[in-house]
């Protein structure tokens, strides 16, 4: 991870929106892309570093969204605080979920995470008195307020999402370059060998899982505040959140810090474009394309687009030297 290019990229990202209409569509798309890049990065911590394939991250996302919004609606608590509450709840959920799933590998683990998120979705859909049911929740409207994390213009949201992406990417790098990161790598490759040389594989997996869950919940809160309205399918859904989080990271390159960023900035703009310029039926086309892209990446270059880019760049450099 080279600091200079990264710094330049962040700076560019910070300056870019100043050239865009703060109430326009393009900045909205970029903001969403930043959010999903951050989501993919949070997933990357368990999926990329620890190789724990989670198909249930929507559980934490939804917990974040519902917790902060319900606290706001019922008690007037600021989403900044609600965010922390949501993160704490998600962390506890991840911890509790760890125990029965600790010894599960691969497919079984993915299945368990998927089932967990699904159950939360169904509960949110049916527990109408508390969660508003299938109709969903609306964030109560108020004029521009930092405290209530609500703005009319998209610009502040853009910076908040950018901040979230930088923060989560930072956490990802911090973990990866630390002792925890080395241990996660060991667990990813060979659990028994890791144990024998002193790695507490259980503890290491739980830490990664809890951190990822908490960060994901924070994003759920930000999503709720940005979109003003959500329903159980939007925040607990398998396809819109769980698969999206994983897909973004895998397409771009799981285990790398730029992977989720590449993945999100590939998927989200294309999807938004399709949604707005195509009819709702053909909007399914973009999803279809992503599904096909996912399969193609898995079969052709499972390490993601980042590797294709690096190889392409290497070949380009070789060509220009010739």
């Amino acid at each position, binding site marked *: 991870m080279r600091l200079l290019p990264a710094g330049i990229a962040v700076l560019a990202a910070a300056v870019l929106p100043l050239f865009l209409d703060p109430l326009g569509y393009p900045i909205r798309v970029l903001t969403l892309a930043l959010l999903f890049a951050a989501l993919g990065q949070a997933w990357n911590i368990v*999926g990329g570093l620890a*190789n724990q*394939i989670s*198909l249930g991250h929507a559980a934490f996302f939804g917990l974040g969204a519902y917790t902060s919004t319900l606290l706001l609606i019922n008690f007037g608590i600021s989403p900044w605080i609600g965010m922390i509450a949501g993160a704490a709840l998600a962390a506890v959920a991840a911890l509790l979920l760890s*125990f*029965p*799933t600790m*010894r*599960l*590998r*691969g*497919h*079984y683990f*993915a*299945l*368990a995470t*998927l*089932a*967990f998120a*699904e*159950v939360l979705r*169904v*509960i949110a859909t*049916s*527990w109408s008195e508390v969660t508003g049911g299938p109709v969903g929740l609306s964030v109560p409207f108020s004029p521009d307020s930092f405290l209530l994390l609500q703005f009319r213009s998209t610009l502040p949201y853009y910076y908040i999402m950018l901040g979230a992406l930088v923060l989560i990417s930072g956490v990802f790098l911090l973990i990866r370059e630390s002792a925890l990161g080395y241990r996660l790598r060991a667990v990813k490759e060979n659990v028994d060998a890791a144990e024998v040389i002193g790695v507490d594989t259980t503890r290491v997996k739980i830490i990664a899982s809890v951190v990822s869950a908490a960060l994901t919940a924070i994003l759920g809160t930000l999503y709720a505040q940005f979109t003003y309205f959500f329903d159980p399918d939007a925040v607990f859904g*398998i*396809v819109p959140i769980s*698969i999206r989080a*994983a*897909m973004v990271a*895998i397409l771009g390159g*799981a285990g790398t810090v730029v992977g989720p960023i590449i993945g999100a900035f590939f998927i989200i703009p294309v999807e938004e474009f399709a949604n707005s310029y195509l009819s*709702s*039926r*053909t909007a*399914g*086309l973009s*999803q*279809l394309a*992503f*599904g*096909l892209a*996912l*399969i193609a990446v*898995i*079969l052709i270059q*499972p390490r993601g687009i980042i590797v294709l880019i690096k190889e392409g760049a290497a070949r380009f450099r070789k060509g220009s030297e010739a």
Partner: protein
Amino acid sequence: MAFLQAVLDGLMIGGVYAVISIGLTLVFGVMGIINFAQAEFLMLGMFIAYFAWQFLGLDPLIGSVLSFAIIFGVGVLVQMTLIQRVLHAPPVAQIFVTVGLLIVIENLALIAFGSDFRSVSTPYQTSALRLGPLFLSVPYLAAFLMSLLSGCALWLFTNKTWYGRAMRATAQDPMAAHLMGIDADRMRQIAFGLGVGLTAFGGAVILPYFTVQPTVGQQFVVLMFTAVVLGGLGSVAGAVVGGLAVGVIQSVSTLFFPIQLQNLILFIVFITVLALRPTGLLGAAR
């Protein structure tokens, strides 16, 4: 009394869950992968039966055979082109190939059929038979009987035909089967085709009391996987037991718990079995 009724209803619907789940467990048993797109084939089966009803006037119970046949073929194709390639790949690749498939199928359906809800109407849809003090809903019973029939057909196939036995051999020991002259690839294609075909069949037989739209598969995901895990991934008998159990658990719990807790109970069952006995109640160790 209400309890007995719930148990009866649960068994009826559980029979269908059983057929749906057998498909999933068959795929795992022979190939060792969990097909996350399984529920999408259920949806396709429902649509085929729906269109057979709409354009050919076929009762879904007959249309279900058509669903089976078509989806069997589709399954074989999918196995040949996709699944085969990741048989020896790491779990992440296997998982996301079927996840990608889920997205592709669901969106193909959305594009082709739109998101409207559709349902059939059959003459017996609202009839019920009396069984002493209990009621037996006719569509439930019909679905159950069809499931029973298909279960028997499957049993006959796997135990009495060469292909069936060859398939089981491939599941137990691919190398040995190969040495015996069995084309393992062909067996896996058949297994996958059968697996998704059966799930499609199950979808079709419940069409009389269900509405179909492209995302209907999602409702069955947890259910199907719970049934399969309960009975043991890879065990057909287990899927039957699991399916019936899930049906009964679901049905009985409506008596005691509000609907939101029903699924929580199912999940608790699911996670408990996965944690304590991943091979399920009847499963073969894998």
